[in-house]
């Protein structure tokens, strides 16, 4: 790992869009009044490719749909909890259903995945989006863990004319992958570390936390970063998991509610693989507790200590 400065995923993503606009790609960026310094550059240089619909997420998705129907690649950019839930029925009807009939390249880019807006409280925590989005047919779902993956996903989004939900962290994050590292987007996951008899399967920012736990401890465990839920090569993932005796899943989302843990438990069950799975995440409650991210993780038993404890003594779930 390098010691370079952490980067915000949204800046990396928007910088790529700026470069794509300079290449004259047919792009529109639609936002619900959510900004960033790089977005300021875009609206200054490419004002006619930028639409601020105001605080109106339903309209953002509808406008994006209409633009995509006219052949544009559209990025609907806003805060993750609002862009995934305030306009869920627009996403269902106009993107998920409609894309079964016609190609629509609408990329919903939600900033503030999981607990990234920690001290903003439960309205800004986004704990449901993976479950909700992977439920909808035809919507690709990306949950990158670092800014290098954000780059790969942004490039992918420009080339694949399908609706997508891309959840980004709001905080700057260090890289987990070397440039051009061993990532195949179609796989949807990457095995970042091998060893021990327990595999931690994490997504988004929690892969960063698991990586820190691994680097700071003498305890060995495998680490799989699930950065996409569609596409996700389940056969390959199963092949990796079968090398271990136990699995700990790790997500900034509700556990037992259709998120990462459900994906892993279902995969193992469908293939008749008997393996202990210990889900770590938020357990059936909202977090009104005021505190920074590490504190919230601690409260949920999903900080580094909680991860190491689960690795050492997972309970049986399957």
């Amino acid at each position, binding site marked *: 790992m390098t010691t370079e400065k952490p980067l915000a995923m949204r800046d990396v993503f928007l910088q790529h869009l700026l470069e794509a606009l300079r290449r004259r790609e047919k792009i*529109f960026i639609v936002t619900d009044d959510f900004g960033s310094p790089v977005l300021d550059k875009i609206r200054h240089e490419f004002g*006619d490719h930028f*639409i601020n*619909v*105001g605080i*109106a997420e*339903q*309209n953002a*998705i*509808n*406008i*994006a*749909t*209409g*633009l*995509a*129907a*006219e*052949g*544009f690649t559209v990025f609907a950019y806003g805060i993750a909890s609002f862009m995934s839930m305030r306009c869920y*029925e*627009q996403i269902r*009807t*106009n993107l998920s*259903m*409609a894309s079964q*009939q*016609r190609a629509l390249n609408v990329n919903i880019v939600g900033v503030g995945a999981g607990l990234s807006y920690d001290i903003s409280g439960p309205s800004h925590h986004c704990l449901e989006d993976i479950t909700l989005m992977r439920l909808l047919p035809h919507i690709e779902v990306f949950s990158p863990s670092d800014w290098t993956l954000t780059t790969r996903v942004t490039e992918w989004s420009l080339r694949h004319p399908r609706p997508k939900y891309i959840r980004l962290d709001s905080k700057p994050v260090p890289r987990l992958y070397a440039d051009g590292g061993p990532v195949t987007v179609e796989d949807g996951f990457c095995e970042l570390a091998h060893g021990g008899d327990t595999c931690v399967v994490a997504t988004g920012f929690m892969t960063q936390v698991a990586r820190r736990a691994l680097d700071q401890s003498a305890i060995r465990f495998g680490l799989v970063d699930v950065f996409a839920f569609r596409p996700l090569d389940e056969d390959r993932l199963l092949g990796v998991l079968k090398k271990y005796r136990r699995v700990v899943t790790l997500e900034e989302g509700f556990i037992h509610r259709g998120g990462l843990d459900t994906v892993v438990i279902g995969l193992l069950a469908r293939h008749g693989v008997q393996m202990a799975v210990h889900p770590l995440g938020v357990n059936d409650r909202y977090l009104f507790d005021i505190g920074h991210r590490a504190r919230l993780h601690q409260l949920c038993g999903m900080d580094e200590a909680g991860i190491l404890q689960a690795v050492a003594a997972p309970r049986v779930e399957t």
Partner: protein
Amino acid sequence: MATETKTTADAALISRLKEKAAWVRNETLKVHGVAPETRVASSLSPVEVLVTLYYGGWLRFDPRQPQWEGRDRFIASKGHGCIALYPILADLGFIGLEELATVCKNGSRLGCIPDMQIPGIETTNGSLGHGLGVACGMAIGLRQKRSDARVYVITGDGELCEGSVWEAVMFAGQHGLGNLTLIVDYNGIAMLDRCRNIIEFEPLDRKLREFQWDVVTVDGHDIGAVHEALAACRQSRSGRPQAIVARTVKGKGVPSLERDVLCHIKTLNAQQIAEAIGRAS
């Protein structure tokens, strides 16, 4: 002289449109006979508007290429109440006339709500309040492409309760979408009651004007008036979106429906359909 010639030509066209509207109304009733699940009352109120749009020379389309880039986009946002589109699309060759006998039958592509698997239908309909926003996106996209194609969208008045409609109304005015026309099928009745007893939209024209729309209110069953309103929209150079508030009668042509505030959910039996068709003929 030129004016007289135009008037004569218009009179002939209006006469043809009236005949076509009578045919579409009867065919819509027949479709309802095939498929009692269809919402017949709300499909009878926009007949003259739809006929004038499709046959009056205002909507640009090519049935052999439903997705032709140069077409005008027409969005049937009031999905349940657009069964009258089926005979129109069949008559124009988007679908086969024989398909009208298959509505809501196993294996048909014509359900009780038109959706985008049908040639000539742009969007997935049935969930109200989406059409105008999608239309705004199309209008912006067409403007960006420097296309002279236009976007038309028809909503019901009950549909105006959806907040997303007003997000789009404000957006269209703000962005000066002069290539967008909204037609409100203003029949005054939602499912359970008259709209005024649920949410009062009046004065709708003033509300839309305040959001920077050009608005004209017409008798939606007066084909000449609808024709003129559509002509004004096509010729508008104001740079503002246009709305036609078409005052209509829900269940138009079927007295038992016209009198019934709950007509939205009413089904006609074979005898009632035969009587209604006979009355119109």
